[in-house]
């Protein structure tokens, strides 16, 4: 039913569906409100670092556990337009599993435990991604074996709880380049064979590497590059063939790391027939920028500086840095801002800021939410999700 309704929406609108990372409470609220106002299905794609079950200590977004997050969203989503989705579920996708350097079997069990909580909380889309391995580089057959283990486990859990779920499968992390057609064909054939043999529905989405990669505050992949990348077929030539292969198998094409692409590049998504695309860190950065901006333009520079300092000290910007980075400390702080929104010290800071801004008739949280809506609406427009803005 979920698969069919998405497919029928896509057929009617010739659009690209949007997956939004729940970067903060304001981001979650903005997404729900836009989905309901425009009557558009949106995938709320939570990574395990953002939202995870209590067993893993929740996530950095409002310290929500999977269950609390799901309840919050479903209570607010009056028209039922949000699809709760797990983004990059799988072994070693949680910080805890990495820090404890779990072995394969324990990491798989841990991932299953997280999926079990997702299904129990009512998540409808599960991204199976065992491409991370802290102990080595598994080959495609090994990765597929892990996909199948997690896939039939989740299917069994959903059957037991009588919950409807659909699957997204991805077998590679963001590389910034494209898959080969042979690789994609091989993966699809193996998945299809597994599903037929085990009488399990095939995945709704397959993640295709289309040349997108987010670093710092830009997209450094080949998709939006004005010049050709050496030894790589340009995305606009490669992608239609990939999409054709997916279409032949009745599977929808999904791309990740679409953040910061130009309007022109985004408009190619529905034209090329890309069925869905994920965006996450861009919205976190948009909120941090909006926060700093409203503080600095209203004589509250001292609060802005403290926020930037807290964000910088978190070091959460580190993984986003390019090797030859020229990013300033301020850039680093803006990149890391959303990771610290829910820390006690930052919450206190925002309360103080909201009080000061209220004296000038400004509603801080409302302002941040509106700024986020503008960022999200850029995708609505370019993906043909709405024609009215």
């Amino acid at each position, binding site marked *: 039913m979920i698969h069919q309704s998405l497919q029928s929406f896509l057929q009617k609108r010739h659009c690209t569906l949007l997956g939004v990372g729940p970067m903060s409470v304001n981001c979650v609220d903005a997404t729900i409100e836009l989905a309901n106002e425009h009557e558009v299905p949106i995938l709320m794609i939570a990574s395990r670092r953002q939202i995870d079950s209590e067993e893993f200590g929740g996530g950095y977004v409002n310290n929500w556990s999977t269950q609390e997050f799901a309840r919050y969203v479903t209570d607010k989503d009056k028209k039922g337009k949000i699809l709760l989705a797990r983004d990059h579920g799988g072994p070693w996708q949680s910080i805890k599993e990495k820090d404890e350097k779990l072995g394969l079997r324990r990491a798989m069990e841990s991932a299953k435990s997280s999926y079990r909580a997702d299904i129990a909380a009512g998540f409808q889309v599960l991204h199976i991604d065992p491409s991370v391995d802290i102990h080595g580089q598994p080959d495609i057959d090994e990765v597929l*074996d892990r996909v199948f283990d997690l896939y*039939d486990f989740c299917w069994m859990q959903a059957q037991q709880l009588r919950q409807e779920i659909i699957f997204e499968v991805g077998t590679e992390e963001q590389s910034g380049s494209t898959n080969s057609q042979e690789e994609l064909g091989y993966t699809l054939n193996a998945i299809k064979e597994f599903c037929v043999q085990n009488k399990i529905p095939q995945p709704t989405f397959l993640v295709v590497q289309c040349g997108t990669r987010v670093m710092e505050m830009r997209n450094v992949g080949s998709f939006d590059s004005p010049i050709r990348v050496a030894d790589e077929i340009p995305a606009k030539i490669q992608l239609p063939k990939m999409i054709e292969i997916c279409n032949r198998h009745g599977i929808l094409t999904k791309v990740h790391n679409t953040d910061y692409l130009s309007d022109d590049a985004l408009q190619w998504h529905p034209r090329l027939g890309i069925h869905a695309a994920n965006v996450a860190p861009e919205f976190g950065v948009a909120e941090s920028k909006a926060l700093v901006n409203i503080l600095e333009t209203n004589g509250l520079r001292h609060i802005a500086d403290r926020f930037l300092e807290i964000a910088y000290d978190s070091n959460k910007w580190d993984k986003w840095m390019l090797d030859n980075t020229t990013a300033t400390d301020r850039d680093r702080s803006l990149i890391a801002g959303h990771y610290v929104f829910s820390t006690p010290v930052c919450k206190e800071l925002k309360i103080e800021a909201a009080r000061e801004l209220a004296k000038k008739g400004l509603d801080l949280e409302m302002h941040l939410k509106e700024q986020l809506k503008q960022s999200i609406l850029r995708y609505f427009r370019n993906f043909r999700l709405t024609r009215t803005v």
Partner: protein
Amino acid sequence: MKRIATIILNRNLPEVTVQLYAHLSKFDGDLTDIYIVEAGSDAHKLSKYATWHANTPKIMQDGLRYGRGMNFGQIQILEGGKFEQYDAFFAHERH
């Protein structure tokens, strides 16, 4: 009604599997149901207590590792309508 299901995953080791089954049955048989998944075992190497034989060409060639072997057992239990009866699953591997 027993509240624990023990699943033994075996491939081509009938003797040790039978020994394990007999041991569990003797000491914990009042607490647990015992199921044996034969994951790609050759026909002449099935243990005499085998519950299910996973024998698709792919499994006969590669077997099933721990995770998928246990999934297989649990799916059979689910399809048999007994999944709800259990509070816990106890997994053993023999191959």
